[in-house]
């Protein structure tokens, strides 16, 4: 017997096949292309492109930016999600909209805003120059732009979950004598840990891969303010195709590791969720 919500087998099969075809064509094939292009002129050429000082500097810078941005956005994302999910306060709706903002605004605009604020002719430009602080075209600018673009990932992952869980358990913990920190560490955090890790990994993937906003504030100083995506673009524009793809393959590899970690976590979560 066919269930009421089930379609005929041929419909199911053709839908599945169509989805798989699209998946292969638009997701898997480009990824394979990246690796095959990277290795087309041989392993040594690819390695050389990666070991080249400017490329290494780009790798270092990308990892450094991610290492600064991800922890900050994790803490801020948890704080924002906590506030939104567990409390009613004036301006709550505004805060929700603000969290979504980086997703709705083009990253290029985000980058331009930072130039307008901190650039030489920007609002704070004169003051910053007086005090010899370099934000735009330097690490702080890259960090700010990446912070902005990747802010929503952690908060958005957590808000629906925390809203669904309510604050009953936190209240119970408080009546049992737990302090604010104990409530967070022993009750709130364990309840959100998988969603949190998943949000952190997504945030990390985007922080390493961000192009638009970073491109505007970077200034493209080779070996200094070029992150991996920017370095790849420069190589590509200079017709160093093999080198461009070699660095791209490394970036893709970093993203794949992140994705694999997320997949592992999710399968772990499913194993942990027990029958009622």
């Amino acid at each position, binding site marked *: 017997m066919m269930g009421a919500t089930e379609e005929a087998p041929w419909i199911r099969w053709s839908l599945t096949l169509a989805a798989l075809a699209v998946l292969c064509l638009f997701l898997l094939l480009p990824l394979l292309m990246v690796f095959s292009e990277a290795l087309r002129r041989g392993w040594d050429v690819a390695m050389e492109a990666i070991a080249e000082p400017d490329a290494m500097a780009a790798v270092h810078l990308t990892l450094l930016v991610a290492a600064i941005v991800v922890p900050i956005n994790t803490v801020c994302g948890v704080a924002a999600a906590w506030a939104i999910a567990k409390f009613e306060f004036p301006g709550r709706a505004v805060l929700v909209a603000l969290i979504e903002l980086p997703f709705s605004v083009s990253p290029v605009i985000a980058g331009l805003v930072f130039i307008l604020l901190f650039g030489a002719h920007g609002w704070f430009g004169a003051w910053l120059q007086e005090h010899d602080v370099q934000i735009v075209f330097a690490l702080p600018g890259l960090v700010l732009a990446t912070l902005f673009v990747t802010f929503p990932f952690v908060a958005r992952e957590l808000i629906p979950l925390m809203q669904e869980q309510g604050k*009953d*358990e936190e*209240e*119970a*913990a*408080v*009546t*049992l*004598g*737990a*302090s604010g920190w*104990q409530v967070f560490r*022993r*009750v709130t955090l*364990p*309840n959100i840990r998988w969603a949190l890790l998943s949000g952190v990994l997504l945030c990390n993937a985007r922080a390493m891969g961000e192009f638009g906003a970073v491109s505007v504030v970077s200034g493209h100083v080779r070996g200094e303010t070029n992150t991996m995506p920017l370095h790849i673009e420069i190589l590509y524009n200079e017709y160093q195709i093999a080198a461009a793809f070699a660095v791209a393959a490394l970036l893709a590899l970093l993203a794949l590791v992140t994705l694999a970690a997320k997949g592992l976590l999710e399968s772990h979560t499913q194993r942990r969720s*027990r*029958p*009622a």
Partner: protein
Amino acid sequence: MSVEVQGVTRRFGSVAALDGVDLTVPAGSFVALLGPSGSGKTTLLRTIGGLEFPDAGTIRIGGRDMSDVPARQRNVGFVFQHYALFRHMTVFENVAFGLRVRPRARRPGNADITRRVRELLALVHIGELERRYPDQISGGQRQRVALARALAIEPSVLLLDEPFGALDAKVREELRIWLRALHDRLRLTTIFVTHDQAEAFALADKVAVMAAGRIAAFGTPETIRGARDNRLVAEFLATPAGSAPRPAEARAEN
């Protein structure tokens, strides 16, 4: 310990959930807060427990003014309507929680905690469930875990919000009898919220009938039954909603 509520008012926006409530619960007694949805009974219970703050009036527990005492320091055992068990902890860890979060100086050793948790689990007759998680046990069993967890901190007052609301009739009846017996044994001052008058009259030493944020009547079940001349009490006792328990009712007071 005794609980004294004096002139407590609590507003949510323009609505007064509590409107000058006075109530004295003597030490060791078993009191029901009875009333329809929205009458303020849950808000009153939460205010006593320190989860809501009164806009005016005072709460005293054992004679001590609770105005500046946060919930975590009130030493009040609170059983939530939907139990609010920690879903990521075993039954054992749920009950041990109140002991584990104590400041180091007052925290019992591990062996001591184990012994006391096992005693409590035996007291509520679920000793065999200590390794289970909350989603692996029945509603009645969860209720018992919630009670054991609240008792673990050796509370001076026990507060129960619709303790049997989410259970089916048979389990409810069984737990009622058992809870009354437990109270007779422990003599712990207990206040419970219910909208079911049969439950209130069967269990409590004294019943406080609430309506529109006020105490409409307070007395033994017999005097309340005799107080039908009081319009609010008569109205509530006459409504079918007052007698027919609705298990699926959401926590309407919040």
